[in-house]
């Protein structure tokens, strides 16, 4: 029984972090109908930035968190403003193939750029949280993962409230629902895209800071998180923050409980099975935007 409880707790905690990683992708996909293939590589770079802040500047990872978030916000801002908006404008009346190709190439460049800049050796920041754990009977709750989960949920809920209650958030949701009508209503499409993308990359930065106490930064780690994020976006529904949170928890639980009772390999397969079933029977996602 303790094994099941341990898996449940671990799955929920890890799922929360997956959700915060994926929510940026969901937002971008929802608002701009754009797939950012460099999503995982952006996380990878954020992990390195977090690592250097913690190891090089001696910062606490949770103190470094807002700084990493701001740096990635700025990165997303400029990338969207000066590159992606132009590509989207070019592909206005068709599928954004240029953006797809660009972000795919950017991901490769980012991965290899990191390899050149930082080398291939994994970098794990040494923090006080590394081996801190709360023992409740036979169950162990790793402190760094618990903190990461809590902060992830707070950010996801905060983002949800932002999208629901603020003028800017409503503008983003309106653009994601119908960009033509949104434009007619006076919403600046370009600025909305910039903000959505920048918020998305900022969330990635926050997630990386949360991962940094227990996850090593390596140049090739982005691909794994990219594929997981896509699954979460599909499960949760594009553009849905709460959907991404739910999707993240589902994926976290499948990987944890599946890994415990089957094997890690089968657990990965199971996530793709759920992904395919969702696409077939509920393509709008578990908590699609239409419901919110």
């Amino acid at each position, binding site marked *: 029984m303790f*094994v099941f409880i*341990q*898996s449940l707790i*671990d799955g929920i905690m*890890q799922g929360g972090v997956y959700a915060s990683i994926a929510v940026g992708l969901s937002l971008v996909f929802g608002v701009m109908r754009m797939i950012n293939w460099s999503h995982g590589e952006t996380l990878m770079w954020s992990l390195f930035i977090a690592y250097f802040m913690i190891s090089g500047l001696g910062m606490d990872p949770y103190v470094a968190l807002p700084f990493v978030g701001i740096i990635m916000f700025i990165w997303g801002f400029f990338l969207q403003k*000066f*590159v992606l908006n*132009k*590509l989207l404008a070019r592909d206005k009346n068709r599928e954004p193939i240029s953006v797809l190709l*660009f972000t795919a*190439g*950017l991901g*490769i*460049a980012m991965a*290899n*750029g990191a*390899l*050149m800049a930082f*080398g*291939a*050796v*994994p*970098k*794990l920041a*040494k923090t006080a949280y*590394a*081996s801190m*754990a709360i*023992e409740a009977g036979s169950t*162990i709750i*790793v402190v*760094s993962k618990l903190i990461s989960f809590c902060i992830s949920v707070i950010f996801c809920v905060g983002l949800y409230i932002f999208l629901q209650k603020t003028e800017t958030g409503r503008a983003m949701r309106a653009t994601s629902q119908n960009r033509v009508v949104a434009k007619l209503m006076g919403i600046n499409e370009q600025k909305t895209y910039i903000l959505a993308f920048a918020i998305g990359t900022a969330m990635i930065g926050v997630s990386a800071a949360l991962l940094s106490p*227990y*996850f*090593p930064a*390596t*140049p*090739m*780690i982005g691909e*794994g*998180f990219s594929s*997981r994020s896509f699954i979460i976006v599909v499960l949760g529904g594009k553009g849905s923050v709460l959907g991404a949170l739910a999707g993240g928890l589902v994926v976290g639980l499948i*990987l*944890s409980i599946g*890994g*415990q009772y089957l*094997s*890690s*390999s089968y*657990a*990965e397969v199971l996530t793709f099975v759920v992904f395919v079933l969702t696409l077939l029977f509920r393509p709008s996602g578990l908590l699609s935007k239409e419901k919110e």
Partner: protein
Amino acid sequence: MKKIISMVMAVCMIITCLTACSSAETAVKTTAPGGTTTSAAPAKTNAPGTKLDVEKVKIGVILPFTGDLAAIGELMWNGIEFYTNNYNAKGGTQIELVKADTTGKPDVGVTEIERLITAEKVDVVIGPYNSAVGAATAPIAEKYKTPYLLICCTNNLILTNGYRYVFRANTCNWQDSNDVMQVLYDLRDRDPANAPTKFAILYENTDNGLDVLKEYQTRFVDYGGEIVLEEPYEADLTDATALATKVKASGAQVTYVSSYLADAILITNTFAQYKVDTVILSNGGGYSTPDYVKSCGTTADGVMTLSSWDVGILANKPKEATDLNNAFKAKYGQDFDEYTSNGYLTMAVVMHVIETGKTTDKDKFRDTLASLDLPPDAPELILHPYGGLKFSTADNLYHDMLNQNIYASSVMLQVQNGKFVMVGPAAALKEQTLIWPVQTWAKR
């Protein structure tokens, strides 16, 4: 704006291309996939008294220079480059190294070895580190009758196909598992009350992982132990929690696992977080790299790993070995390790064969290599604790393997206070250094 976009895309492309190319101090040709080559330095002409009748020897080096395994590829390259620099500095025949990047993937490895042999026309190929690529590339070398010396690439099965041109001077899985078990047998003889009896095996879901599983399934049972868990996992883990909780629930006293560096670090730290009281035992991989102990520090205390090399070996070697290590350390900032030493060894064997046969003819090279019989104090083995170097033959296969060095062996290391300490084989030690039993997490 179009200009800015074009510039950004051009920069992205340049960065990607630069990653595949590199410069070197020796007469090294660097080649990006696609075949563009540059030479870093011209070959020297023959000086009088040169041992060979050839101006240069062209050696194809096929390694993972990028990708997940790049850290180890880089280590191996350092050993190869160090040998090459020293050799070329003597004058006379020059070694020209031609790099080929496998990215750690078999399909890329196949393309690259074919390019090395057919386009670059190398005399010999050495590499590729991981067994998956080794298994895919060995038949290509055989097809083109090009001598291919495997570096690491320990999967037994690669050499059970009767390939005449594929050789391995370092250890294979059978020898590694033998050396691992010898330490356990020594421990059981010395301290039977505390000797481990419950074993878990974590293995990568790859050919080599399955080969290793088969080895240790037999070995642990022959030892008299009980295998309480056999768990496959996919490389490039993003979370090792399930592995940690499974091992903890199994009650395994020793967990055998062989992982690449990133997975090794993640598994070690996750086991520490979940206070899994098991001793990680490995046959190398990421566990035997200097970066592993640098990254994990005292968290890895107690971990035991096989390695082809440790600075402790120098105690039983002539002074030249220590001088060589010091020279290497002066240049690369760290002692030799398993990967740098294997790269060095392979180069030493290649050049010894070429000097012995006085030719780079592939068939003659192959025949000379196959008939080698070096004693343990041969200069080529200056860094290694091998009992010699002699390859198994078709008439005398070594555990069904052809062209395996029958005298290859490893040493056992244990992480103590965040550093590697040589703890086996017992015969190589002046005093007992193994810490057993390892402290539980509750007492740390």
